[in-house]
C-alpha cells in the first residue's frame, strides 16, 4: 500500500470517526476500473445514519460495483471512504455490523432455507437461535426446513433478507431486493424496510422500481455511468422540479387559444398529447389556479379539468440521467409515455426541462 493511499485512508478514518454518528457510509472519489472500462468514477457518497437511502441508476450504472466495494468484495482502483466509521480497506472491522443481499439471493439449492442460514451464521459466529428468529421475521418460519430449490422467487428474496439480518446489522445493504416480485411481495418488502428503519438500522437499497424508492426512501443517490448525479433528500429532489397545472378544455381550438393567453402572462405552457390536444401543462402551482380559471372564463373557455401535478421520482430520474448523459432522453421518454406532443411543443418542452 502506497504512502498516499495510507494517508487517504487515515483522512477517511478521521472523517469517518467524526461523521460516524451522522453518516453510515462516506466515500471520497471512489473509483473502480475494470481494464479500460470505468465502472465507478470518483463517487462521493454520504449516506445518513438511520435513514432508508435509495440507490438508483440504469443497468450498468455502477450500483452493484459500488456495493461490492463497500462490502470489501472488490478493491477500489482509487478513492477512500468509511463504513460505520471504519476505513473501507478494512472490511473485517465493520462487516460484522453489516448485513447484505448482493445481486439477488444465492444459496445452496439442496440445503434447506434454515441450513443455508446456519452455514452463514456459523461462519459469522452468530448463534443458531438467531437463525430461527430471522426466519420468523421474514415470514419463512413454516417453510424453513424445505430445500431452497423449492422456494418461489419471493421466498428466495426473503431468505436473502433473512441472511442479511443475521448479524443484527447497523447497516443493511440490499441490492435489488424487489427484483422479480409481484405487487404483493413488493409491498411486503416495503413494509419490512420501514420496520428495519424504525429499529434504527441504516438501510441502503438499490432498485429499478423508482415508485417503490419514492414511497419508502427519504434519501436518494442517483448515479449514471459510474458518476454521481444527485444525492440528497427525495423531497428535496422533487421540490426542485416546479409543479404543473394540468388543464383540459372542451376542444382543441379552446386549448390553442388558452395556450396563447397563458403565454401572454409569461408562463411556460404546452399542449400535451393526451385527449386529442385538449390538455395543457402550465408551469405554475395551485396558487395560480384561480387566476387561470378567471382568465379562461373571460375568454369564454370552459375548463373541464384543472389539477396540480407534482413531478414523480421517475420523471426526475429521467431528467437527471437524460440531462447528463443523453441530451434528448428526457424528452423522448416523456413523448414515449404520451405526456408530450412533440409536433406542437418541442421548444416549450426544452424550456421546461431547463426550468424557468
Amino acid at each position, binding site marked *: 500500500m502506497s504512502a498516499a493511499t495510507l494517508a487517504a485512508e487515515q483522512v477517511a478514518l478521521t472523517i469517518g470517526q467524526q461523521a460516524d454518528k451522522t453518516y453510515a457510509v462516506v466515500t471520497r472519489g471512489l473509483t473502480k476500473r475494470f481494464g479500460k472500462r470505468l465502472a465507478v468514477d470518483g463517487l462521493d457518497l454520504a449516506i445518513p445514519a438511520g435513514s432508508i437511502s435509495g440507490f438508483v441508476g440504469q443497468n450498468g450504472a455502477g450500483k452493484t460495483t459500488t456495493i*461490492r466495494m463497500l*462490502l*470489501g*468484495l*472488490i*478493491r477500489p482502483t482509487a478513492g477512500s471512504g468509511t463504513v460505520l466509521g471504519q476505513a473501507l480497506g478494512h*472490511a*473485517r472491522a465493520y*462487516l460484522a455490523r*453489516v448485513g*447484505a443481499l*448482493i*445481486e*439477488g439471493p*444465492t*444459496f*445452496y*439449492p*439442496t*440445503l434447506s432455507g434454515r*441450513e443455508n442460514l*446456519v*452455514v*452463514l451464521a*456459523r*461462519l*459469522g*459466529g452468530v448463534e443458531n437461535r438467531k437463525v430461527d428468529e430471522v426466519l420468523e421475521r421474514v415470514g419463512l418460519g413454516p417453510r424453513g426446513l424445505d430445500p431452497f430449490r423449492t422456494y418461489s422467487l419471493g421466498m428466495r428474496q426473503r431468505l436473502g433478507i433473512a*441472511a442479511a439480518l*443475521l*448479524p443484527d446489522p447497523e447497516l443493511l445493504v440490499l441490492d435489488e431486493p424487489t427484483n422479480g416480485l409481484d405487487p404483493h411481495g413488493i409491498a411486503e418488502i416495503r413494509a419490512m424496510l420501514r420496520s428495519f428503519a424504525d429499529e434504527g438500522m441504516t438501510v441502503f437499497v438499490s432498485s429499478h422500481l423508482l415508485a417503490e424508492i419514492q414511497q419508502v426512501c427519504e434519501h436518494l443517490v442517483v448515479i449514471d455511468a459510474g458518476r454521481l448525479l444527485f444525492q440528497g433528500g427525495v423531497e428535496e429532489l422533487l421540490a426542485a422540479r416546479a409543479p404543473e397545472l394540468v388543464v383540459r378544455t372542451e376542444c382543441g381550438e379552446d386549448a390553442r387559444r388558452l395556450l396563447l393567453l397563458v403565454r401572454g402572462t409569461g408562463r411556460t405552457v404546452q399542449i400535451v398529447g393526451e385527449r386529442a390536444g385538449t390538455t395543457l401543462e402550465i408551469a405554475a402551482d395551485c396558487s395560480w389556479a384561480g387566476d387561470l380559471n378567471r382568465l379562461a372564463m373571460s375568454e369564454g373557455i370552459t375548463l373541464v379539468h384543472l389539477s396540480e401535478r407534482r413531478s414523480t421520482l421517475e420523471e426526475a430520474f429521467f431528467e437527471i440521467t437524460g440531462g447528463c448523459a443523453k441530451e434528448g432522453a428526457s424528452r423522448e421518454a416523456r413523448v414515449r409515455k404520451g405526456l408530450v406532443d412533440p409536433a406542437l411543443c418541442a421548444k416549450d418542452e426544452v424550456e421546461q426541462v431547463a426550468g424557468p
Partner: protein
Amino acid sequence: MLRAFESEWIKMRRRRLWFGSYGAITGVVLLTTIVTIAGAIHRPDRQGDLTIAQLAHASGLSQGIAQSGVLLGAVSFSIAAAQFGGEFAHGTLRNLLVRQPRRTVMMGGKCLAVLTFLIGAVVVATIVSICAAFAMAHLRGVPTGAWTSGDGMAQLGIALGDLAISTCGFAIVGMILGVLLRSSVIAIAAGLALLLPIETILTDAIPGTVRWLPGQLLEAIAQGGSSGAPFGAALITVSAYLAGLVAITMLVFVRRDVTA
C-alpha cells in the same frame, strides 16, 4: 478458522453429497480390492503378476487398497473441485466473504473440512474393502493368517495412510483448480484431462517423467512408492508442488475481485 470449518461441514452433511461421495469412494476401493484378489494367479506368467502366495503375506490385505490410488484420486479431485468451483459458479462465495472477510481463514477452514470429509470416506472405504478382501480370500483360497498379525495390521495402517495422503493431494489439486478457474465444470474437465490421459501419454512417451508429473507422483504415494518414483522422493516433490501452488492460489484468491 474453526468457524469456517464447521460452516463447511454443515454443507458436507448433505445426504446426497454424503451418499454420492462416500458411495463412489467406497465403490472404487471395493472394486479394486475385488479385482486385485480375483485376478491373482497361482503361477505367474510374467513379471509383475500378483500371485496367491504373495496375497497370503502380511501386506496382502492392503494390495487392493493400494491399487485404488488413481481412481480414488480422480473422485477426490472432482469432489474438491466441485466444492470450491461451485462457490464461484453459484455466486455463494460473496455471501461467505461478507460473513468472513478474512479470505485465507475462510479458505483454510473450507479446505480442512473437505480434507477431513475425504479422509473419512477413505477410512469407511477401507473398512468395507477389508470385509470384501476376507470374503474374496475365502473364495480364492488365500490364507489370511498373516493379514491379522501385528505386521499385517501395520501394513494395513501404512497403506491407509499412503492412500489418505494421496487422496488429500488429489483433493488439494482439485481445490486449486476450482479456485483459479472459478468453475467446477471447467476445473474438473481440465484437471481430469491433465491427471489421467495427458500424464499417462507423457509417461509412456518420455521416460523418467513419472518422477515429475503430479498425478503420477500421487499415484506412486498411494502405492507406497513405485520403481520410477520412490515414496520419499514422490512425497517431497508433491509437497513442494502443492506448497507453491497453494501459496499462489491464496495470493490470487485474496487479491482478486469477487464479481461472481
